[in-house]
């Protein structure tokens, strides 16, 4: 068999394959639901209801989408330049660390100054964490996939060390958790009494800013060129290594914002379960959005909806909530195939 590029696909075809991808994902997960002895239709209904069936559910989904938008953007930016950042999880935790280091009273500043200061510091820390693997890639040719993956484990252990050491909350009854951030370092709730916080707004603004950077600036153009064809980019005079450094700083910074927003907007303090794998889910979010920064918002809400809905579903039906992770992983694989099939025709012979 071989693949032949299609002439510009029509709107119908462009939509057909992603829809087929979702159908295939549902079909596959239906089999698992059947294996669990439940009815797929009622389970999917419960997931949808749990994700968007009430005002509470919707707010919960948007709250869960917030860190995913940040990590999704981080991955989208990096992958566009073919910088394989699989370390968003580590960058997220570093963002959380910087937030509690600066936000628990070390800087007695009013909120309008303190929060921007923390944001800048958080982004810098996350960016520097990814700069390491990026430098190793450009200077020594060390594959950044492995280094960013390994850093996830190192950073989590580092956070664990801090939470049992210098950052440990003396009033925490022995639990490895940090102190709560002070009121001035907290992101307020958007609506009183709901968990949705201004981190969501920052996430949306970030997506728009990243979209502008990618589409309207020289840096964005250079990043796309480097990702598309590094040799060609170098040939036309683009400083490939420098572009990769900037990409790393931006990508790592965005992922770190996820940690900041979770600590400052939702949890209040840093614990070792701050992220149930948001860094890895960010890869799925970015791919579902075809690396489009604005698309990341929609796909993050979609992925968050599956997680929130599955949590609600598993409380009622006897289907493990891990079905959500299966759905998300399956949709990643079906979607990359769908995107391929919109662009290429498979010829058997």
């Amino acid at each position, binding site marked *: *068999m*071989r*693949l032949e590029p299609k002439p510009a696909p029509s709107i119908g075809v462009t939509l057909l394959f992603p829809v087929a991808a979702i159908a295939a994902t549902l079909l596959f997960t239906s089999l*698992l639901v059947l*294996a*669990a002895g439940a009815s797929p239709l009622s389970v999917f209904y419960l997931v949808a209801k749990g994700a968007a069936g009430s005002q509470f559910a919707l707010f919960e989904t948007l709250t869960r989408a917030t860190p995913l938008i940040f990590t999704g953007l981080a991955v989208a930016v990096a992958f566009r330049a073919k910088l*394989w950042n*699989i370390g968003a999880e580590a960058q997220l935790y570093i963002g959380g660390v910087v937030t509690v280091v600066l936000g628990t009273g070390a800087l007695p500043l009013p909120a309008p100054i303190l929060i921007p200061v923390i944001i800048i510091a958080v982004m810098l820390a996350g960016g520097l964490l990814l700069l390491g693997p990026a430098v*190793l890639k450009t200077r*020594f*040719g*060390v*594959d950044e*996939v*492995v*280094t960013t*993956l*390994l*850093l*996830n*484990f*190192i950073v989590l*252990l*580092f956070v*664990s*060390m801090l939470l*049992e*050491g210098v950052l440990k909350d003396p009033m925490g009854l022995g639990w490895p958790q940090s102190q709560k951030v002070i009121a001035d370092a907290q992101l307020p709730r958007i609506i009183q009494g709901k968990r949705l916080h201004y981190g969501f707004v920052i996430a949306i603004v970030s997506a728009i800013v990243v979209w502008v950077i990618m589409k309207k600036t020289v840096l964005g153009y250079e990043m796309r060129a480097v990702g598309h064809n590094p040799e060609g980019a170098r040939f036309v005079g683009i400083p490939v290594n420098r572009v990769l450094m900037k990409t790393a700083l931006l990508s790592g910074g965005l992922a770190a914002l996820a940690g900041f927003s979770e600590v400052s907007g939702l949890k209040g303090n840093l614990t070792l379960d701050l992220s149930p794998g948001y860094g*890895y889910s960010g*890869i*799925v979010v970015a*791919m579902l959005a075809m690396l489009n920064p604005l698309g990341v918002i929609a796909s993050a809400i979609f992925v968050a909806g599956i997680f929130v809905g599955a949590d609600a579903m598993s409380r009622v039906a*006897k289907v*493990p909530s*891990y*079905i959500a*992770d*299966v759905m*998300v*992983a*399956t949709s*990643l*694989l079906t979607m*990359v*195939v769908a995107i*391929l099939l919109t662009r290429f025709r498979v010829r058997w012979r």
Partner: protein
Amino acid sequence: MDALEILFTASFWVAAIRIASPLIFATMGELICERAGVLNLGIEGIMTAGAFAGWFTVYAGGDLWTGVLVAALAGGLFGLLHATLTVPLGLSQHVVGIGVTLLATSLTYFTYRLALPEVTSPPKIEPFQPLPIPGLSKLPVLGEALFSQTPLTYLAFVTVAVVAWVLYRTPLGLAVRAAGENPSAVEAQGISVTGIRMGAVVVGSALMAVGGAFLTMSAFNSFFFEMINGRGWICIALVVFGSWRPGKALLGAILFAAFDAYQVRLQQMSGGIVPYQVFLMMPYALSILALILVARRATYPKALMIPYQKGER
């Protein structure tokens, strides 16, 4: 005991070889894939699936070797998925690999919860027992370290020999190596690059799964979440460190495992002055360090990560 004396005790080397065994299987698996030109980032998830599949087979009443076989089959199946998407369809090996890891891991956890809904502590099985080899096991230090292990450890060493022999001494091995270096040359011989690469990924993934199964069926006796704990990623580093050669990769795995066993003992000796997390970080940090050391002279298979389309240059 002195920090250096540890190195000369038999129990230390027994532990090192035990720690090395799952890494040896998975490193050989990854090495086969990469020699054929495919980076398999599904390794971490495939090891998780293998660890569960093997353990669960035994828990459900199968015997140990059936468990190993089921683990290998499960790994091969995920390998087939990976290969189908990356070889004939030529999709990004990074994205597909991460996708396979996420899928294999989540499917494993889903199945575990489904099969054992209410357990709080994972049930145990009767794992592989040490099988001292008559005569050889009586050698000082070496006998205990190498010849008093479980059958799965012996299998790991046999695997290295078989992989090395096939890769360097058979036409099939030549085709695999050429598929990773110069695929059009393979096609010119009338051999299908697609077939070779897919076969390599399936077999390699089966080995990764057996590596995972070693943990639940030989090193420990039960399955728990996140038990692979980055071992898959470490194996990818070991392949680079071993410059894609089975013998060197084996040496790397043993060196790494010795270091890992050593840090555990240092941790016990340090008496809590240094936070234990520092010791736990060492294996990962060491892997990164090893990558940096060899990166300059690393010679990747030339067609690694480059999809092949027949008739295209």
